[in-house]
């Protein structure tokens, strides 16, 4: 990532240059959708949250003092926006999701079980896993968006995956039956 061009983009956008904001939008849109998905567990809502995130960012951009922290700032707007959506939908969507995750033990749906394992993680770890596998972000991209060092991203991804593997194993899901399922 060219840091100078990013701070220049932010500065230009702060001064009303819409095309610069457009570049930032295209650069971070997917990351924000993934981040919101890690909170909401729903792709459509995550997309709504990402759209709303950019609308808020657009309106509050002049309050951003540290232009080199744009990605981290955007990510915090996105988390808050997603949490607000989750709160307002808690009685419906989020509740449904909780119910789904409880029911998976009965249904033993493979995807649901994996999602359940992911959603059992701490929010900070879940963010990383979702960003890594939702849209295939590299560790460097995740590091840039979440503003944490690449080595920290790597370490936390390893730990999070270990937790997921442990959870899946405890629930009877292993490499063997993953392979079996895949062939069906």
């Amino acid at each position: 990532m060219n840091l100078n061009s990013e701070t220049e983009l932010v500065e230009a956008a702060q001064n009303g240059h819409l095309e610069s904001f457009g570049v930032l939008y295209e650069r971070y849109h997917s990351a924000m959708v993934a981040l919101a998905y890690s909170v909401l567990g729903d792709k459509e809502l995550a997309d709504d949250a990402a759209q709303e995130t950019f609308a808020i960012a657009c309106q509050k951009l002049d309050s951003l003092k540290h232009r080199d922290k744009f990605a981290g700032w955007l990510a915090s707007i996105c988390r808050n926006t997603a949490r607000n959506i989750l709160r307002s939908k808690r009685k419906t969507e989020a509740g449904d999701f909780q119910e789904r995750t409880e029911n998976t033990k009965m249904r033993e749906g493979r995807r649901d079980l994996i999602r359940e394992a992911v959603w059992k993680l701490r929010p900070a770890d879940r963010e990383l896993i979702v960003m890594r596998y939702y849209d295939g972000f590299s560790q460097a991209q995740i590091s840039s968006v979440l503003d944490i060092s690449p080595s920290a991203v790597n370490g936390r991804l390893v730990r999070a995956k270990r937790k997921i593997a442990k959870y899946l194993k405890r629930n009877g899901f292993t490499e063997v039956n993953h392979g079996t399922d895949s062939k069906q």
Partner: protein
Amino acid sequence: MEQTVNNKWLEEALTEAIGSEEQKPDFEKWKQQHPEAVEMLTSRAGEGPLMSTRPLKIGRTIMKSRMCKLSAAAMIIIAVLFGLKFIGGPDVANIAWAEVTNRFAQIDYVHIYIIVKSRGDDFFGHGEAWHAHGKTIVHGNDGSVTYDDGRMVQYFDKRGMLTVRRPSIFADGQSFLEYLSGGFLSDENWQLKEQTPTRVCEDFLIYTFDPPPGSNWLDTTSITVGRNSLLPIQMKIYVEDEDYDLFIFDYEAPEKPSEFFIPPTVVSANCEGEVVLDGEEVVLNISGAPGLKETAVRLYDRYDGPAEEFPSDYISVERHSPDFCKSVSEKARRQYEKKGGPVFRLDVSFITDEGYHSTTLDFLAVWLNEANQCGVGALGGGLDDWPDGKYRNIRFSPSLRPTDREDTYIVEIRCRVETKSD
């Protein structure tokens, strides 16, 4: 040392379960959907320096000529020789508070010593808290223990009685720092998040926050943060006068075993029975709470409508002033807004071994499967409530759970009497 998790099957399974088809961002569409945001941004054109509004050359600068490459290499060598940080080290004076909270959110384990200097009576209290892998335990200075597993919070008083059980604030997205600060250090507070250190020292940074507007108890909050780790070391929340709550963060304390975070088995309630919504008062026998014989309960006023239509006179009791009822109703409305419905009203009164009746606690708003600490008697209604003039304060926590029959619920009450000898 980290063990590598390099399971191809797990990678495939994760991609399959949470992977998404690539969606191309469509800025044109976004612009059409958010005209107000666009207008707000473009209206700033011309306010800033001219240089910033010029079209930008976007993309990597590629060093094509040999001379350029040599010049760049020379610059790097000079920078290294003179000990300069080429990309620029963190400008600690400009580190926003949001960075500290982000770092803290990534911590797996922290042990906190809590010192309460309060409140003008030379009182010093000590507590401890542990926050590990999403679970929290707080040992209060009064002997109470709070267990929070990230979904539910359970509060046990000094005698081990479960007095509060309700959804965790962490389930609602609050951070641990927000919890410690009584809600002040909110992740949603933009001003706080942007704030930079008020003091930069050799090894640490100090962030100082003004009290929130309208606060009548909280004064300045001062937080010392490690300069390299960007983790809080100490948080001092000044309250009125010179009293304060001090939190010391210990990241090196040995981790407690997982059993430590499991709440004790809750002993059965002192009384339990069925109540019918808007039905007759039910008298339940109390066991295991010396001094108390029976309790009388009544359930009514179920509300499950929109929060904005929550009745302003939900709590309306003749023996209380209209202002008091209004304020209690408003508090119930705010809770309803957060938790949703249904909400019920529950009347509770107690009968002692001597046959004395306590006043009725008739402004309780209760939610299903939650318990809250309540009191009636000496503190709730005054000493005069008891014919023999003795001090008796009844602490109790009612909870309500549904049955498979409409309008029939199980009410469960844990209670005890506090006397002067306590």
